[in-house]
């Protein structure tokens, strides 16, 4: 059945067909839904994705390994550092390269900063979709400080291109750690508390999110959800802890899990709250990483021309949107034979398709925001 048939069927039936997107204020980026609705109640919301398909996986097949890192930035524009990290992890696994400790710590610092920035947008834009504009800009304000820090670190505010195969591109600049500490001091618990008072505990928000689009644990695993969305459903699974990479084994942190904070387990409010709790854990990780940061090289001795042996590897990191994996197949040449990018938003979008039935139109917006969809990550 193609799209035309869906349109004809709905038009001929008793349902209203709403075309939500690709230009719609709450479909962040360009996502389109064909919403079959009876009044305000949705019977099905069919996602039409691909508006941002740039063929990154195809590009990878004609790019040298080192030259592909800037492209990974474009996979997820809100959390580009993780894409960098996952890709270089995949290549390093293939090369069997040992990364210096300092580089690993720098990667974790960059990752966790990026996670806070990404979650700030997620919770802020969720509040915005529910109608409160101010929390979004408060989130943006704090994210701006992180952007300034990453700009100090690697020169980019959105597309970082910070990591290299075997390390990172640059060491910390002067005064970076002091500014980062200053940020952490205001962020946790100051900002998080204030944000919770501003919107997180707000009764209207709770009423809008609690019991909306509840995803149970079994269902979440079945639909392949990952990251905060999965954890909100009560599955304690975090790649940082369970399939450790980088220097996470050295660091201490908790994995926040949804437990039906104000409604039922796995509802939209749980997804909102898990992200807020994760930001605080990220701040904790950052504090430890600053404390333990070792001296040494930031770059392993990688060959100038990277030519991994034939083989396969899967480099996965816990991105802000869950398991972000780069499945790399090399035939021994200068370019990969195949690169598959497995992203969290892709499976979250599928979950949205499944869970949209029975929602109201306003709930679809909440579901979409709470699953923290980033369009380029779906389309790649």
């Amino acid at each position: 059945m193609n799209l035309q048939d869906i349109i004809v069927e709905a038009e001929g039936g008793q349902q209203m067909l709403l075309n939500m997107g690709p230009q719609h204020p709450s479909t962040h980026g360009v996502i389109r839904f064909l919403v079959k609705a009876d009044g305000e109640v949705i019977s099905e919301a069919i996602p039409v994705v691909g508006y941002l398909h740039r063929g990154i996986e195809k590009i990878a097949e004609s790019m040298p390994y080192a030259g592909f890192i800037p492209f990974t930035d474009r996979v997820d524009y809100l959390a580009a550092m993780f894409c960098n990290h996952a890709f270089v992890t995949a290549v390093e696994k293939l090369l069997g390269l040992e990364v210096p400790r300092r580089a690993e710590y720098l990667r974790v610092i960059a990752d966790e900063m990026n996670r806070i920035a990404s979650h700030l947008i997620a919770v802020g834009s969720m509040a915005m979709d529910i109608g409160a504009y101010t929390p979004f800009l408060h989130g943006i304000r704090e994210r701006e400080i992180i952007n300034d820090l990453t700009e100090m670190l690697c020169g980019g505010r959105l597309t970082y291109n910070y990591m290299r195969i075997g390390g990172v591109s640059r060491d910390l600049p002067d005064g970076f750690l002091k500014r980062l500490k200053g940020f952490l001091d205001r962020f946790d618990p100051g900002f998080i508390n204030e944000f919770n008072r501003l919107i997180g505990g707000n009764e209207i928000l709770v009423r809008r999110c609690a019991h909306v689009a509840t995803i149970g644990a079994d269902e979440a695993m079945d639909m392949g959800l990952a990251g905060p969305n999965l954890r909100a459903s009560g599955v304690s699974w975090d790649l940082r802890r369970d399939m450790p990479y980088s220097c996470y084994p050295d660091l201490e942190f908790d994995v926040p899990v949804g437990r039906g904070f104000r409604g039922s387990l796995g509802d939209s409010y749980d997804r909102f709250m898990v992200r807020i709790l994760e930001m605080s854990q990220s701040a904790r990780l950052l504090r430890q990483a600053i404390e333990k940061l070792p001296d040494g090289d930031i770059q392993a001795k990688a060959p100038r021309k990277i030519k991994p042996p034939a083989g396969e590897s899967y480099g996965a990191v816990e991105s802000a949107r869950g398991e972000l994996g780069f499945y790399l197949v090399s035939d021994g040449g200068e370019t990969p034979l195949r690169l598959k990018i497995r992203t969290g938003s892709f499976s979250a979008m599928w979950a949205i398709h499944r869970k949209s039935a029975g929602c109201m139109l306003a709930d679809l917006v909440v579901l979409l925001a709470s699953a923290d969809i980033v369009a380029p990550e779906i389309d790649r």
Partner: protein
Amino acid sequence: MNVYAQTLMEWLKVPEAYLVYVRIGVFFVYALVALTFGALFAGVTSWYERRVAARMQSRIGPNRVGPQGILQWLCDGVKCFLKEDLVPKEADRPLFRLAPYPVFIGIVSTFVVLPFSATVVGSDLNVGLVYLIAITALVVAGILMAGWSSNSKWTLLGGVRSAAQMVSYEIPLALSLLVVVVPAGTLSLQGLIRFQGGAPWNWLVFQSPMTFVAFFLFFTSALAEGNRTPFDLPEAESELVAGYNTEYSGLRFLFFFFAEWMNLYVIGAIVTAVFLGGWRIPGVAWQRQAGSPLLELVGFALYLAKSLVVVNVIIWLRWTLPRLRIDQLMKMCWKYFVPIGMVSIVLSMLFTALVTAVPLLGRITSIGLLVLGGLIGAALLRRTAYAFSSFPDKPYFKWMV
């Protein structure tokens, strides 16, 4: 205004036969003044709201056009004038073109009964409150027309939401006004203001526990009537693109927005007149206020100040709260507001009878409620102090940036 027509005739020594013409002339002038006031208020408020919102969001806001950007609304207006007045191809053209006017008329017509001071009022109708509720119902018609005629599903949803919401909230709105009407014994706005006193404990809001509840009921319902956050579902940006006015542009769009911001003042003025003592000056009898131009001016300033406080609270709420879902909105109206309103009317009658018998009770209740209001204010202040102490950013009092 008839008083002024009379005075003018005596002053100009016009024969009695021309009374009706002079009256028409005076009304015409008054209408112009009121409309200009409303327009200016709507314009300046649109700028003011943006500045306030900006500061709440740690931004600066529009500050380029004129001193501190105060002329920004003029620029926006001129822009809307110059834009093409688009009508969608499949739209119902006459209805589409007509729709902004009922909205506009519905809001502007409230100025007939809205007083400015003791004697400056369009017409002190003895059914003033009924007139207010009736005339603002025109807005629903306009919004529904706009939503329907645009022939877009988003606007239709916005229009239908709006119709459901506004029709429902008319009821708690009217009920909460009735709660006040019971002790005051009048439907005229001026009559209500005269019934109250200048001092807070003489205001109707603190008159009885029921009026205190009715105040919140009325304020919330008025927000819902005026499509303000947290009840801005008809134009919920993140859900319905822009609701009923999605397809509008240029001047017709301007009319909708004009009406929306003028409505801010209307809500503020009604709340002030009915609950917050209107133009009454503490310690001055209303008869004295009606005579002296100076006291009239002071009364007007007080009235405007109180209205502005209410307007500020509305703006403040808008930039703080998220919005409700349509079923929650309906539930709130029919399951909470309407029953509470009805019970309040009955209790209000009983209480009025009781107070007539024991006047001291009324005085004690007023003081008690005033203290309760103060406690709510104190709770807010305490929370604000906590907000300052829990976040490292220091207070900063330079407002002109």
